């Protein structure tokens, strides 16, 4: 369990943390770092830094396009770990979660991966396609635990109570509550659904809960923050803004402002 993540969630304010997803090295390692610095400066509590794979199965069109962009430029997991190191050098408090797919970790391989990200200053890893049924998830979770890092687990609307129990039992850092079935950036969740889901989880555990998928605006974030969750996760909305304004000289500043508009509404 990552101490840093623990600390973040024990801090009173903001009551609802903003967790923001960035595609690592998108559009370049340098700009990516600048964007993330803006995010930190504008109140993001936890960063999800995405690393890319060609067969990512949970990404909607927006994030997929960013992934393809990075893939085509040839940046790989090593570059992203370097990015994490740079982020950590810039800031000691923000939570950093590496997020992606098992494909890359398996080839890294896992043991080296955990060593390297520990050195880089990451706090946790989230592997979209590594349920606890997967051998490599077990290896990864073990290695992370041993190193004081977290494996972020997910709960989905399809997850039944029995399974949810298993998941919260092994969850660490926070629980990523996937609030709709589908890929990133497409469907939007209803406040009631999320509230009920958060309740369902809360009955089982005290672990922090962050809700994600389809939160597109500060208003969405505000609404979701009323659900009882501890954090809201915003991904596609930021990636889309970056995508649409790649050539804008004021890109990083404006992304800062955009993030500010989210953190402003989250007390």
């Amino acid at each position, binding site marked *: 369990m990552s101490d840093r993540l623990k600390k973040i969630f024990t801090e009173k304010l903001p009551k609802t943390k903003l967790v923001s997803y960035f595609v690592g090295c998108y559009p370049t390692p340098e700009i990516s770092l600048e964007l993330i610095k803006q995010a930190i400066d504008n109140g993001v509590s936890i960063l999800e830094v995405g690393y890319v794979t060609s067969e990512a199965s949970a990404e909607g069109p927006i994030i997929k396009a960013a992934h393809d962009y990075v893939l085509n430029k040839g940046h790989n997991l090593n570059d992203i770990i370097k990015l994490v190191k740079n982020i950590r050098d810039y800031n000691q408090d923000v939570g950093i979660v590496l997020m992606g797919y098992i494909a890359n970790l398996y080839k890294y391989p896992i043991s080296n991966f955990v060593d390297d990200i520990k050195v880089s200053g990451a706090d946790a890893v989230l592997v979209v*396609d*590594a349920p606890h049924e997967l051998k490599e998830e077990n290896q990864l979770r073990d290695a992370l635990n041993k190193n004081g890092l977290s494996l972020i687990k997910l709960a989905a609307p399809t997850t039944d109570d029995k399974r949810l129990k298993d998941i919260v039992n092994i969850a660490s850092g926070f629980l990523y509550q996937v609030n709709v079935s589908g890929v990133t950036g497409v469907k939007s969740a209803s406040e009631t659904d999320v509230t009920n889901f958060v309740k369902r989880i809360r009955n089982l555990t005290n672990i922090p809960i962050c809700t994600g998928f389809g939160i597109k605006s500060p208003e969405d974030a505000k609404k979701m923050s009323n659900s009882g969750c501890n954090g809201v996760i915003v991904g596609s909305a930021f990636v889309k803004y970056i995508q649409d304004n790649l050539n804008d000289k004021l890109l990083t500043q404006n992304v800062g402002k955009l993030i500010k508009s989210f953190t402003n509404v989250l007390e």
Partner: protein
Amino acid sequence: MTKNSYKTGPDELGYFGSGESAMGGMAVGETLMPVLHELNQGFEEAIKDQSFLDEFDYHCKHYIGRPSPLYYAENLTKKLGGAKILFKREHLNHTLSHKVTNSLFQVLLAKRMKKRALICESGAGQHFSATAAVAAKFDMPLTGVMGDIDIARVNQNIIKAKHYGAELKSVPGTLKEAITEAIKTFSSNPDYAYICGSVVSSAPYPRIVQFAQSVIGREIREQSMEQEGRLPDMLIACCGGGSNLIGMIHEFLDEPEIIKIGVEAAETAALSNGTPGIMQGMKTYMLQTDDGSKSLGGSSLGAGIQYFSVGPQHSFLRDQGIVKYTSATDKEILEAYKLIASTEGICSALEPMAGAAELIKQAKNKPKDYLICLNLCGTGEKDLNTIQEHIGKDFE
């Protein structure tokens, strides 16, 4: 998988083999995990339900037209002058390939599990048109995902699927991209049934598809004993995901005296040229960059075997040395097509001609009482444009 048999796997988490070298598993997002467990349970219950199995058998016989003949390819045998050659005529099934047996099984299962809509992916379009036919018969809506390159080259299958009432979702690319997109569609609609077209993806699909297709091998055993008084010495099939191959050999996995050969497309020969990796739901051999970030692989004329990866059971069987895996080039595939069309009057799909290319090499130097069986798993109607484009002038 019990210690003494290669036929009983995978374990309850979908692994073929154990420890580090285990292949398969369930590498999918949380949204689908409960759905896949439910599917696995539904499958386990269904195959213990004799009336369900009887229903499957009934439709295999009446709708698909099983058993497909086991055919003595006399002319080819004489022409090659070596082993005695048999074809398992899976192309005579309704919808013209082996794929429909699997579609039928899974659609029946989906109905049993009260699913109301279907998703599938497809490479050669055979699985799409087959699933669309079965979906029409059992009155369920279907969305099929295909790569635009495949859509263009196997257009007949798409037209037929549409006539059966299915919807087509196009993505840039080929089978690989179609599978990823199909999984996304499934994640967005976890109450649908995803009808997987080969022994690939997360558990329980490899096992379900293997179960459905293994009727091929059981038929071969019965037919070969009846017709030849003995079993084949060698079984050959092409291998994309590997469903027609496993369907043919599963029955014989514990009989090491029967040689088994799977033939991949040279451009996407995961088992010959790949390394283990985890993508598209499973741990298996695949062609990918060293860092695991990108799937790789060129393009083969056989749309259905142009797949950078392969079903996990095949990776396991490869590592165990139970099955031999080779590959065939486009040129070899086309030559085999020509030979079989002209000697046997059979217009085959290009995919099984990868198997035929290997057959030609194997048969030549074998004695006359050596029995080789090729799984002829599809007809060439879908490929006629491609064939004409490449070797049309050879027939004038």
